[in-house]
């Protein structure tokens, strides 16, 4: 049962090589004198899935910006595969709440965009077969040459997944990836995400507002509390893999959800 609730950066039950390590990461915006993050410790091991949950304004987007190298931390270190993150990195894949597809590009052209930006048109052309294979992987076979305005929200978000995966990143950073979708599509996409992550042994960091989503997907869920943003508690989710939507009705699942909800309620007033 729920036995996590530890402040250690490496929760029990997580094996494997550390891929992404944050040590004592703090961020203060000097000009506005805002203390956004305080002493964040995280350690993502290879192939693990780390969920993070917190109310709005708890510093999640600052944390993500630091993790992608768009912001530098005021204190602490961010290491990815043994090297400090100082700027945009090729081995990081990122996904947002909105699919952010470009309407003048077909699905497959959207997928190869990161390659085109980094290595040029020719390299992108060479990746078309990989891109088509990825679209096939997420169930979009036959939609390769379709423009985004003909895709549904869920389909567009799946194209965005492919765009994130085409560069073969070591780490996936997901910023509330399915929160713009309806409940049914969201459950479905969560399962798809699990399958894709398993297939590629991806190390994943998920920011979400949904407790059930965090629990059903993650190996570890961290609860963030706001002002300054810090990790109030970390819970190891000990449910068997692969997870299924049926698990959402099991008592153990409900217990995790309850535990995290309580932590959140407490965290908000800490």
């Amino acid at each position: 049962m729920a036995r996590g609730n530890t402040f250690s950066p490496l929760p029990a039950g997580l094996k494997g090589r550390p891929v992404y390590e944050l040590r004592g990461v703090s961020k203060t915006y000097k000009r506005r004198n805002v203390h956004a993050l305080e002493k964040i410790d995280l350690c993502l091991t290879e192939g693990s899935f780390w969920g993070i949950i917190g109310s709005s304004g708890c510093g999640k987007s600052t944390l993500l910006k630091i993790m992608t190298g768009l912001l530098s931390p005021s204190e602490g270190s961010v290491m990815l595969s043994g090297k400090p993150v100082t700027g945009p990195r090729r081995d990081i894949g990122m996904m947002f709440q909105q699919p952010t597809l470009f309407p003048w590009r077909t699905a497959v052209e959207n997928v190869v965009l990161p390659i085109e930006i980094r290595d040029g048109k020719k390299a992108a052309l060479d990746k078309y077969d990989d891109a088509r294979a990825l679209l096939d992987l997420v169930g979009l076979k036959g939609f390769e040459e379709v423009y985004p305005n003909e895709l549904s929200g869920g389909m567009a978000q799946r194209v965005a997944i492919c765009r994130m995966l085409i560069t073969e990143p070591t780490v996936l950073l997901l910023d509330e990836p399915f929160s713009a979708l309806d409940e049914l599509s969201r459950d479905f996409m969560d399962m798809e995400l699990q399958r894709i992550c398993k297939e590629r042994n991806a190390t994943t960091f998920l920011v979400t507002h949904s407790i059930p989503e965090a629990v059903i997907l993650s190996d570890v869920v961290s609860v963030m509390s706001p002002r300054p943003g810090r990790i109030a508690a970390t819970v190891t989710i000990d449910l068997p893999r692969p997870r299924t939507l049926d698990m959402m009705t099991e008592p153990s699942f409900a217990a995790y959800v309850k535990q995290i909800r309580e932590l959140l309620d407490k965290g908000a007033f800490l």
Partner: protein
Amino acid sequence: MTDERKTAGEEAVCETVWAPEKVSWIDRVPRPVTMLLLLLTFLAIWHVVYLLKVISHIILPSPFATIADIFTVGVNLLTGDYMLKSLWTTTQEVLFGFLIAVFLGFFLGLLVGETDFGERMVMPYLVAINAMPKVAFAPLFVSWLGFGIASKVALSAFVAVFPVIVGTAAGIHAADQNARMLFRTIGASRWQTLTMLKLPTGMPHFFTGLKNAAVLSVVGAVVGEFLGGGKGFGELIRIAASMINTPRVFALIIYLSMLGLATFGVVVWLQRKLIFWHKETVAEELFE
């Protein structure tokens, strides 16, 4: 009472009679017909006003006289007479003026939209100049560039350039936060962000600017001709007006508007080709 075996739900379904969707009579008439109807109504009112002599016949000619003159001018144009030459003069002025406005406007828009220098130092001046009544510069352009075509091209470009600047700058700012963030995380250079994100995203804004410019470039050229002479259509209108040949003035304006429509049409055609993904709003359609 209704049949007892039916449940309440079934009853509701059975008894519901859907009202036929109301279609206004105007939707059932083909669009060209409705357009023609409005035109005929307008001409009829015009003719009634003419017959009642509410307004002097010197100022308001009969619609038939005007239509007759439209034919006269048309014949003159088709036979390649002096009117065609003067229309060609105005066309050249409009085309050159429009093209200069597009290129100059695009680069000024880039400067203002993309660079801090442009936004902080150039923009205030552009705003100030834009607030001026630009056609008032016509005498200046004439004294600088002479009575030939150059002064009209300059005025045309000057009047038409501002919507292009605004459209380009607005377009550059149109890309949303997520898209910019995506480009940053991928590690795109400034040039890549501009060419692969900001400019394509801004295309609809740019074309809105172009459409306004297409109309304004005709205004600029004709006003230039009014005030600076030359051989163009504006001069013909001025001469006809000074001879109180009102039907001729109307006829010439009709043909002049064709020039504006043609420029406009080319821009719209280009827009449909280039930004196929963009659905136009009602406001944008109004300019077509």
